[in-house]
């Protein structure tokens, strides 16, 4: 991995050093193997490479032995120098090198270009599919959860050897993962994974008072693993997880899958789709051979379970699955799962206040409804009646101003909607200046 990282650093410098000018660069605190990778990839198009290490023999002509960094800098006719200090090594005149430009291996993780350079070093890795999501997540990750360049290089080497990009995630400090059923793995999921893995040693998570709850959740989640034959095996596995969690062991990243870790550490419930699929499988496994229920179109129901995630088909899918459960005397789903399915059948409200963007809320509502919005109706606030007490008091003024703001912001949109054949409440089609009756208008002015 260090050869990959060294080669990538050399390539980065080749692309970013100003050609034909004096370049003085300092690379500090890198493993000797990274410097070796740089040395191998170095060529005449780059300034002189000078490596300070306890084993100068490894670097041949690139080893810095008797010349100081300052002397290299001041040599007549020099085109610059890239000075590499391998871990722990230092030059006596370090303070005189403060004007050297500092380049660190982590610079490769700052941009997609840098990650591309890293992945293209021999043996090259094609960053496509889930690997692309990992690349994006690494570039976007904050300082706290971003893996080191050394770890990313090691991860890429494992991908080059044919490992699955999601299963190999522990190499960069994330929980092992697999693509959610019927969904693409996106960078947000990998980013969440990195952040959760970084938080696993936090004090708030490892409070002694939280251990009992963590163990209980670990037992509940691990009981669903198909590979664990009985309760004793589940308890042993939960004990192993708790031991690794309390010891801050990195082995936990291989032991728990991301979804499991999320449920145990964050109390975040599993997505409804996989739960429904699993309960359908459990129900089918208990059916008598040749029974009538065995002949049901189970593939269709599994497809409906996948549609529960989001989108237009969510409500229809929930309805169909509830009908299936009813037809089987409510034996298919557990009570919590049934309740979640029924919740999807209810009317929904969309909040446009946080952040304040009614247009985005309208788009979300259209997505939820699965098509064009046919009718817009103002349910509240009602404008106060003319010449009434409400027309001149504080709450009446609030209602009038709310409507005026809505008209000002959305008037153009609603008028176009109205002309396009949509049914829009007349209250929203009035001019924003129509604040209310004249009495109120005078008092405001």
């Amino acid at each position: 991995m260090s050869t990959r990282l060294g080669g990538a650093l050399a390539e980065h410098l080749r692309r970013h050093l100003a050609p034909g000018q004096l370049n003085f660069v300092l690379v500090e605190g890198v493993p000797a193997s990274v410097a070796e990778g740089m040395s191998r990839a170095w060529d005449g198009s780059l300034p002189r490479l000078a490596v300070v290490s306890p084993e100068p023999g490894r670097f041949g002509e690139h080893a810095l032995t008797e010349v100081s960094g300052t002397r290299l800098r001041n040599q007549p006719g020099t085109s610059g120098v890239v000075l590499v200090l391998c871990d722990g090594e230092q030059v006596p005149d370090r303070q005189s090198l403060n004007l050297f430009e500092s380049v660190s291996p982590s610079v490769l993780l700052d941009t997609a270009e840098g990650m591309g350079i890293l992945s293209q070093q021999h043996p090259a890795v094609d960053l496509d599919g889930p690997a692309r999501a990992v690349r994006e997540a690494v570039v976007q990750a904050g300082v706290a959860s971003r893996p080191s360049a050394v770890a990313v290089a090691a991860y890429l080497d494992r991908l080059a050897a044919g490992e699955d990009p999601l299963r190999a995630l522990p190499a960069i400090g994330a929980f092992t993962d697999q693509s959610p059923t019927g969904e693409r793995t996106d960078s947000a999921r990998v980013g969440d994974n990195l952040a959760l893995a970084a938080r696993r040693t936090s004090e708030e998570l490892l409070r002694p008072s939280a251990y009992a709850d963590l163990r209980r959740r670990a037992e509940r989640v691990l009981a669903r693993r198909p590979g664990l034959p009985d309760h004793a095996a589940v308890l042993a596995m939960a004990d192993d997880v708790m031991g690794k969690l309390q010891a801050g062991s990195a082995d936990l990243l291989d032991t728990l899958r991301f979804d499991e870790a999320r449920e145990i550490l964050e109390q975040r419930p599993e997505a409804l789709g996989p739960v429904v699929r699993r309960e359908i499988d459990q129900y089918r496994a208990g059916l008598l051979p040749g029974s009538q229920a065995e002949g049901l179109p189970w593939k269709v129901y599994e497809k409906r379970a996948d549609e529960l995630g989001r989108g237009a088909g969510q409500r229809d899918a929930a309805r169909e699955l509830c009908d299936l459960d009813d037809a089987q005397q409510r034996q298919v789903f557990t009570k919590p799962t049934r309740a979640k399915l029924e919740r999807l059948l209810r009317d929904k409200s969309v909040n446009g206040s946080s952040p304040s963007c009614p247009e985005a809320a309208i788009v979300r509502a259209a997505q939820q409804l699965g098509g064009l919005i046919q009718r817009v109706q103002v349910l509240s606030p009602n404008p106060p009646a003319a010449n009434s007490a409400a027309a001149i008091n504080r709450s009446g003024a609030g209602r009038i101003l709310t409507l005026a703001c809505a008209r000002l912001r959305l008037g153009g949109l609603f008028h176009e909607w109205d002309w396009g054949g949509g049914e829009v409440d007349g209250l929203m089609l009035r001019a924003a200046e129509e604040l209310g009756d004249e009495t109120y208008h005078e008092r405001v002015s």
Partner: protein
Amino acid sequence: MRSILAVDLALHVARTAWATTHAPAAEQYLLLSFGGSPRAQDPVRQRSEDSYRRARIRLSEATVQTLALRMRQLDEGERVVDWPSEFQTGSALGNTDDEESISNQLKRLPRPAAAEHYLHIARAAVEAANYSRGAEDGFRVLLESVGALVGTGSYRYLTAGPDLLAALVGAVSAQMPMPSREFFAAIRREWGLVVNQESAADTALASQIDGAGLERNARRAEKLMSDAGLALGLSDRTTIVGERAARIGS
């Protein structure tokens, strides 16, 4: 004197935990962070938080392992152990009426029992009762009392203010004055404290953080020492540390 005694005791506790849990040598350090960058952009501070958290985790693990060892030693002794009486009076761990209490689990254990069985029970005991006050909270309070630990909650990190730096300089004053690099190497040897990239070379930090970031950290520590009169920046840009260094300069 008070500061150095507190640091000595805190580091003794940490070293005992590292030895008890067989912590790898690369994990046996505490990273001091210097600087005023916002936390989100300061990798050294975040690694410092991590080094403190890992030390605490080791303390917690050491408690579990010591408890397991003590249970085993009691069991292997000559006298028959009355397990409920080994726990604090009134503690749920020694409740004879609860089938799953720790004393009943120990009673049921088939003899001779393997070490991992004791470890399992000790972990259950630590989960059911609060054993963290003695070691973990003591460690935290000691470091906080000398200004070596600042911040709150999950954002606590290790640093050293002028008073603590003065105490560290005073503690190695027999070898003073010395260049800052040698001073950083001395506090790494003596207390396991890491400040610059040279002293981080044999730790896990070498693969976690850029050497340049640690060097900037060292420059800020040097400046703090210079401002406090504990060090002197020479014209060749080297920094000499020592109680007498500032006096020589003035």
